[in-house]
């Protein structure tokens, strides 16, 4: 959808057209919910956050000028709200102790239970590593790799140039990889096989 179309959609929402608002919810609801879920890793919190974010969107429709993609504007609002809500307890939030229930909605069902268990453990490890690296790096990795935003959209949402987005994304991935390696090494030689141990339980 082009920027003029998005501007037109927002204008119709501002005029009170129900259909336009439903279209906006259909188009952005899933993405906003993903952002909220990746921040909270709890279904109830994510649903509450999603409603808060859409309330914020509705109340601030007049601020959108069509200068950049609507999704970037919405993600920017969502991010600010999530940070307001979670910044204080981000470091002790569930990222450190990610439960199976938290990652289950993110995993596609697999016929092979062992493979599914490995992916579950690796996903939990990913969220643990995200909690260990600097916040500005982690959020770019989440927006790019988990939420699937384009570089331009991330740059607009975070008010950063594309080059900085790419550079930070690379650093974020590298830091996460190093954290995972350090964790394995600190657990000794056998720890590298921890993912396999998780899989053994299903065999």
């Amino acid at each position, binding site marked *: 959808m082009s920027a003029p179309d998005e501007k037109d959609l927002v204008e119709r929402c*501002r005029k*009170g057209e*129900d259909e336009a*608002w*439903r279209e906006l*919810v*259909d188009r952005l*609801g*899933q*993405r906003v*919910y*993903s952002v909220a*879920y990746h921040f909270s890793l709890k*279904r109830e919190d*994510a*649903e509450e956050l*999603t*409603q808060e974010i*859409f*309330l914020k969107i*509705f*109340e*601030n*429709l*007049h601020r959108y000028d069509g200068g950049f993609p609507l999704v970037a504007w919405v993600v920017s609002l969502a991010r600010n709200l999530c940070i307001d809500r979670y910044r204080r307890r981000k470091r002790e939030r569930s990222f450190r102790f990610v439960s199976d229930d938290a990652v289950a*909605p*993110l*995993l*596609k069902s697999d016929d092979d239970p062992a493979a599914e268990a490995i*992916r579950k453990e*690796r*996903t939990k490890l*990913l969220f643990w*590593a995200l909690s260990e690296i600097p916040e500005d790096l982690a959020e770019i*990795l989440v927006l790019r*790799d*988990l*939420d699937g935003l384009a570089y331009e959209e991330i740059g607009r949402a975070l008010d950063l140039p594309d080059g900085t987005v*790419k*550079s*930070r994304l*690379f*650093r974020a*991935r*590298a*830091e*996460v*990889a*190093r954290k*995972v*390696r350090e964790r394995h090494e600190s657990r000794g030689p056998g720890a590298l096989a921890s993912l396999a141990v998780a899989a053994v339980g299903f065999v």
Partner: protein
Amino acid sequence: MSACREVDRLIAAGREPEFDAHVEGCAYCAEVHREMGRLAETAAALGAPPLSSSVRSALYEIPTWTVSCEGAAELLAASADDGIADADRSRLSSHLSRCGACSEAAAVLEISRELAPPEPPPWFATKLAASTFPRRAADSARPGKARGSVRRWILGPRGAIAVAYAAALLFMVLGLNPADLARKAGTARLEQTARSGIQVARNTVLDRFGAFQERAFRTFEVVKGRVGGYGRAALSTALALVMRNDTSRRPSRPRNEDGSGAWKCNEVEIWTWRAGSSPGGRA
């Protein structure tokens, strides 16, 4: 396998191409690079958590129970003049409960409607008229000014205070207590104001009366003292005249033994002490 320090520099600088080149000859960094790949695959494989239909329906309903900030401004403006429908009022209050900025704006608008105009003091109108219409003030200074000055006095601050005192006194004398009237009217504030006004008036009257009484007593005492003093003097003189045969006036000054009267000033013996001398040359 020891950790490579080069990777720190390359990662901190965000220099991906150099890192890729470095990976070729460094086992540690190659392992990090492989881990990055695995994590990227993991992240890419993650699906988005599905948005439930109930939440989606709740999102559809948002415009039915709240308004945007600009909608709130319009409803606030409309509610000040013509009033708004109950549904709009509900949506507005819902928004105000969430939005601090709009809530503050609503409070300010409400206060602006509640403010009462300031009441000028009683003499302000007269003063204003006098200063605004000098001709009228000049007219009042002409021959008929006696009447005008009385009116000015009545309308002036002193006149207003005097009238207030007189009215309060009259009320008290007639047994009409303004506080009772205010209580009957059911206005507690008016009652309190009336009570304090009566108290002030009563205290003022009592003070004035007390001062007047004290001044009258003083004056009476002075008059009584003077009358008593003169009366006693006159009575004693009359008695002396009646009781004595010789009514000639006695000399009030001391006399010499020979009856020549008081010493004259030049007859006063003045002496000074000298060694071996005595007053009058007497040894």
